[in-house]
């Protein structure tokens, strides 16, 4: 059964804010990223990409490219190993190797613009690019579909001829619908028909990108022993290894992945894009091959989050109690199945207790890049729809929307929309904190002439995951501890891990030296994603530290000639149970280990069920120029149940980062698609993301309801904060202008249009 822990607050290290261990390397530029990779004999790899969103490949002629001086290898889809159509667990989701392989290199058909059709390796990038231009591909261009409505029409062009869709358990062929799932509980029709107040609205959202600064990259060397060494920017070295081995059809032990520093991922660097291709180019050229993606390709071919169409219907009784809800959710999967409709169903009603609910979700193929996780994948979309509908229901019935959320808040024993029961959660505490916050109790202030102001609130939810993590500890003679852990450090997790160890051992955070290991230096660890890292890898570090205490008790027993069970350990000090005055500190003991058995090491390894449900509420104040439609966010507060904040600065950073990304999604970001399936804004010049100049300080309120599933009460925090911003902004715009927007982005053009 699952272990549970009593909450405590008397920590030495947990809850403090030490300087991050990787800080100096990061700010001085010494940290090694994928773009910095250099190896003896290194050559460059470049992709040849489709200019069409949907086309049959009639022929590929690589002869001119292969004949160029400086070209070492050219590969096409024919060189890709035939991966089986089989789902394999990747941690935060499953992967079908056949689809994943075809995504990296098209076999017979291209399914999205930029879909690779060949790859070239040459002496340098310029020769490789010139050779790529000499690859001649003859296409038969096909009609394309770029939204769920068109993709489900009876005469829609079909992307995958061999797709067997799952329509509520029944097989469907000749379709772009990969899956249709339903969750239904209670008497939905009866409750809806007897509701005193109902509302039904449709919402549409455009596809958006994670927008990480560092582009995808990989360096691979397929050596003489048929071992494949990969250096890459990834959110998980082990899941990357699983994907590389599966796509290349080799044993995982033949692949070594070294994770380099990562310049943002947000879920988009869980899938691999270059690694198997660089490996195949290396095998053919017998040289290490490096590939770095250009920005246009990052947008056109990697990890967006689904565009969506959603219809929400809510019913409430005369007392303001939600009694019924239905949600119809269509998500764009991109060119392969997998559009996160499962998580959307888990999240859509989560902040509310509703007895009678139905959810229908459709996973729909379109001629766009295959979607990838992006911070709470599926949840921001349904939060926009649900939280907008809740506000509109309150407007219609004349109810206070904050009080309505409090009165209907989910709590321990509430069922999610997929039927699963909540255990101890902090939704109500979050709402209480929001209602008591300085922001909520401060006036909005007067807008300058020609502008209007409004305030909006919204809830958000992510379920957070646990999964596998590993950590190794070794005591140094100077009393410090070497920590090797398996989680890519995206947001300062290295230091949080060190703090877990330091808390147990009675050390300072900087007495623990953390490194992120490669796949041959630490045990299996799942992705940095799903808001699992501080929870699960921190748990493994806590376990390793406790195991190390046991090892050291044996050494103290040798020193004092007593039994290990007669040794106590508290706050960095070992003592004899029989003679309490007999003590030795951790650091002093470390210096004596050579005579007490030598190296003192330990490991921790966990496979955890859940990181504890995460709830948040955001408050947004906006000021809108009635002439231009430009929206300025003038004040913003994110309130969230974070369990226990190990390093509060990093937790605050997660809340601020998620808020900023959500605000960008709300106001500006979109894949602006042209009729031929081409993305018109595939650069950061045209794909407008918010910067520090666009936004005020994002205030945070950390509500700490300790998670009983973690020894320090940690709850996942990184994903929930991207869920409330979109509806909070939508509700603020409605408050300011009197006009409600049902589509994203809510950019100046759409606001001006709404005011006509």
């Amino acid at each position, binding site marked *: 059964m699952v272990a549970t822990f009593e909450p405590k607050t008397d920590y030495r290290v947990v809850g403090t804010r030490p300087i991050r261990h990787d800080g100096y390397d990061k700010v001085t530029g010494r940290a090694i990223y994928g773009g910095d990779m250099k190896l003896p004999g290194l050559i460059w790899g470049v992709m040849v990409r489709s200019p069409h969103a949907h086309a049959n490949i009639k022929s590929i002629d690589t002869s001119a490219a292969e004949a160029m001086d400086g070209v070492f290898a050219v590969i096409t889809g024919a060189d890709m190993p035939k991966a089986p159509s089989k*789902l394999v667990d990747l941690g*935060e989701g499953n*992967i079908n190797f056949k689809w994943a392989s075809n*995504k990296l290199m098209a076999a017979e058909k291209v399914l999205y613009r930029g879909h690779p059709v060949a790859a070239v390796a040459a002496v340098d990038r310029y020769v490789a690019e010139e050779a790529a231009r000499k690859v001649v591909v003859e296409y038969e261009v096909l009609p394309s579909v770029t939204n769920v409505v068109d993709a489900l029409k009876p005469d829609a062009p079909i992307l995958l001829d061999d797709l067997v869709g799952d329509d509520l*358990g029944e097989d469907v062929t000749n379709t772009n619908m990969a899956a249709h799932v339903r969750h239904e509980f209670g008497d939905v029709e009866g409750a809806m028909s007897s509701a005193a107040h109902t509302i039904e609205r449709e919402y549409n959202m455009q596809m958006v990108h994670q927008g990480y600064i560092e582009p995808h990259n990989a360096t691979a060397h397929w050596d003489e022993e048929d071992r494949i060494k990969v250096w890459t920017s990834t959110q998980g070295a082990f899941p990357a290894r699983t994907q590389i081995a599966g796509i290349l059809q080799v044993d995982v032990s033949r692949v070594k992945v070294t994770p380099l520093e990562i310049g943002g991922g947000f879920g988009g660097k869980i899938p691999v894009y270059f690694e198997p291709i660089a490996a195949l180019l290396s095998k053919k050229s017998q040289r290490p091959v490096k590939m770095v993606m250009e920005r246009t390709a990052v947008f056109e071919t990697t990890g967006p989050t689904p565009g969506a169409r959603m219809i929400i219907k809510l019913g409430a009784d005369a007392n303001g109690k939600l009694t019924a809800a239905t949600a119809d959710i269509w998500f764009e999967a991109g060119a392969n*199945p997998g559009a996160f409709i*499962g998580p959307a169903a888990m999240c859509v009603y989560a902040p509310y207790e509703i007895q009678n609910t139905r959810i229908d979700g459709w996973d729909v193929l379109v001629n766009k890049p*295959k979607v990838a996780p992006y911070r709470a994948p599926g949840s921001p979309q349904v939060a926009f729809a649900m939280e907008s509908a809740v506000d509109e229901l309150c407007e219609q019935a004349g109810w206070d929307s904050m009080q309505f959320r409090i009165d209907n808040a989910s709590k321990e024993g509430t069922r999610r929309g997929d039927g699963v029961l909540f255990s101890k959660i902090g939704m109500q505490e979050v709402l209480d904190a929001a209602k008591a916050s300085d922001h909520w109790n401060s006036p909005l202030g007067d807008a300058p002439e020609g502008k209007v102001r409004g305030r909006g609130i919204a809830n958000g939810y992510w379920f957070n995951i646990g999964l596998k993590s590993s950590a190794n500890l070794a005591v140094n003679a100077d009393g410090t501890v070497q920590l090797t852990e398996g989680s890519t450090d995206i947001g300062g997790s290295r230091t949080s891990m060190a703090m877990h160890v330091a808390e147990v051992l009675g050390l300072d955070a900087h007495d623990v030296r953390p490194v992120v290991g490669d796949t041959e230096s630490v045990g299996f660890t799942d992705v940095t994603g799903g808001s699992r890292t501080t929870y699960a890898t921190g748990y493994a570090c806590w376990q390793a530290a406790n195991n190390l205490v046991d090892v050291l008790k044996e050494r103290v027993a040798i020193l004092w000639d007593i039994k290990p069970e007669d040794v106590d350990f508290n706050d960095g000090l070992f003592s004899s149970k029989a003679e309490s005055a007999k003590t030795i500190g951790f650091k002093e003991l470390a210096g004596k280990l050579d005579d007490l058995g030598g190296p003192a090491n330990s490991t921790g390894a966990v496979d955890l069920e859940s990181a504890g449900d995460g709830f948040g509420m955001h408050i947004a104040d906006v000021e809108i120029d009635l002439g231009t439609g430009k929206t300025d966010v003038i004040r913003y507060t994110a309130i969230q149940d974070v369990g226990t904040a190990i390093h509060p600065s990093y937790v605050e950073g997660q809340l601020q980062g998620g808020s900023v990304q959500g605000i960008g999604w709300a106001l500006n970001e979109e894949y602006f698609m042209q009729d031929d399936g081409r993305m018109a804004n595939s650069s950061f010049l045209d794909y407008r993301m918010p910067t520090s100049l666009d936004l005020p300080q994002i205030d945070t309120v950390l509500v700490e309801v300790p998670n009983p599933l973690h020894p320090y009460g940690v709850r996942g925090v990184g994903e929930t904060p991207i869920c409330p911003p979109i509806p909070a902004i939508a509700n603020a715009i409605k408050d300011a202008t009197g006009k409600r927007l049902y589509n994203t982005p809510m950019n100046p053009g759409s606001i001006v249009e709404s005011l006509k």
Partner: protein
Amino acid sequence: MATVFLPYALRKYADGAERVEVPAKTLRELVDNLEAAHPGTREHLVEDDRLKPGLAAIVGHVATRRGLLQKLDSDTEVHFITAISGG
């Protein structure tokens, strides 16, 4: 008795029931006994003697990491939900 919340697609095997009671001490027993009582359910839940890829089993409040070996308390509720899947 465990309470199994049937995925919507499996309710047709149980006369449309939203949930059914199944005697079981492990998840494997539960799947076997569910199949005995409601034939047709097993193939949707198990493949190669493991939980089907793309499926997560929620036992009580949390997704089990023990698969069919998961032990069940007598009053446990069990859900089978879609895991995140893709390519």
